[in-house]
């Protein structure tokens, strides 16, 4: 995560909080093998404004977005394991060959 990434995430989280919206924050907490993004990469899923940041795009990210919607609905954090080892020659987007462990947490608009 670069300083600018941290900055844009902060702005997005604060905007959601000020607008009173619940959103979800996804963080790659560990990886194995080759993955498009590394530990620390983050994405905010805001049902109103969409995505800020990326955890690597493609099918893996779609799984995380799905989980994020569940997390926003239930208010309960979740761990998502994204497996990109599927089929190295299938030309699917999931050909990086690694596994990502992602923590997806609800971000409430209330002051904690």
């Amino acid at each position, binding site marked *: 995560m670069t*300083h600018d990434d941290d900055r844009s*995430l902060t702005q997005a989280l*604060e905007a959601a909080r000020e607008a009173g919206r619940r959103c979800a924050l996804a963080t790659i*907490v*560990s990886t194995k093998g080759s993955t498009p993004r590394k*530990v620390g990469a983050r994405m905010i899923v805001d049902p109103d404004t969409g995505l800020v940041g990326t955890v690597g795009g493609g099918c893996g990210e779609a799984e995380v977005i799905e989980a994020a919607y569940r997390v926003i609905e239930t208010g309960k954090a979740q761990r998502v394991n994204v497996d990109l080892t599927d089929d190295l020659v299938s030309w699917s987007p999931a050909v990086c060959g690694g596994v990502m462990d992602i923590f997806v947490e*609800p971000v409430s608009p209330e002051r904690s």
Partner: protein
Amino acid sequence: MTSLHPAEATRLLVEVPERGGSVVVSTVVGDNQFTGNRIALIVIENEKPELRGSLILESGTDSAIQLMKDILENPHSSDGLHKLTVADQSLEIYIEIRRPVQELVVVGAGHIAQPLAHLGALLGFQVTVIDDRPEFATQERFPSADKVIRADFSDPFRDTPLHTRSHVLLVTRGHKYDYACLIRALQMDPPPAYIGMIGSRRRVRATYVQLLEEGIAHALLDRIHAPVGLDIGAETPEEIAVAVAAELIMVRRGGTGVSLKGVERIVERFFKEDK
């Protein structure tokens, strides 16, 4: 104390390093009653370390703080998962660390400085541009620079104190200005993280002759990256800026600067043609 809100935590990750401090944020990511709880440890030189938020029960806070301090003290530590044992319970926590922001000081506000300032900002440097000409040292010419300063090259770093997080690039319009700034940067103790000076082989040699004549220790010459940048055949100001930026990354991350194709040799190693 209650848990730190994610927005407040990421704000600390931005603001503390900008103030020259370090910050560690711990988040419980294992599945238990503390999941999502956050605590931050802020360490700024000459200030008392500060805690924000809470992680777990009172009994576990001390061991969490100790773990965060250990991580901060290890210069090689990076973001990742850790285990914390509290009252026979093993907790999985995710720890993020941010160190003081690195600075890029571009001396000279000419045509190479412009793409350099952009790339420097893109790479996460706090960028300062210095020139003695007011019409060149303008924020309009350097929209991504944090500071644009007009200063005489006889005392270029007066308003921009250099330290061990500074990366100094000398790209002024004239050899004599580069030299005046170089000698000041070289005499810094402790030295800046990086000193780069633009110039042809001839110009660099002439500079070194002059430095030695002025009594600068031979060992100090090795601190200077000159000619500046990696050898990628750069010609335009933009290309030169990329070559310099690549060198800055190499210094930061400890790479070799060699093409990965040549490092990995995948064809040679795995796809040898049968003869």
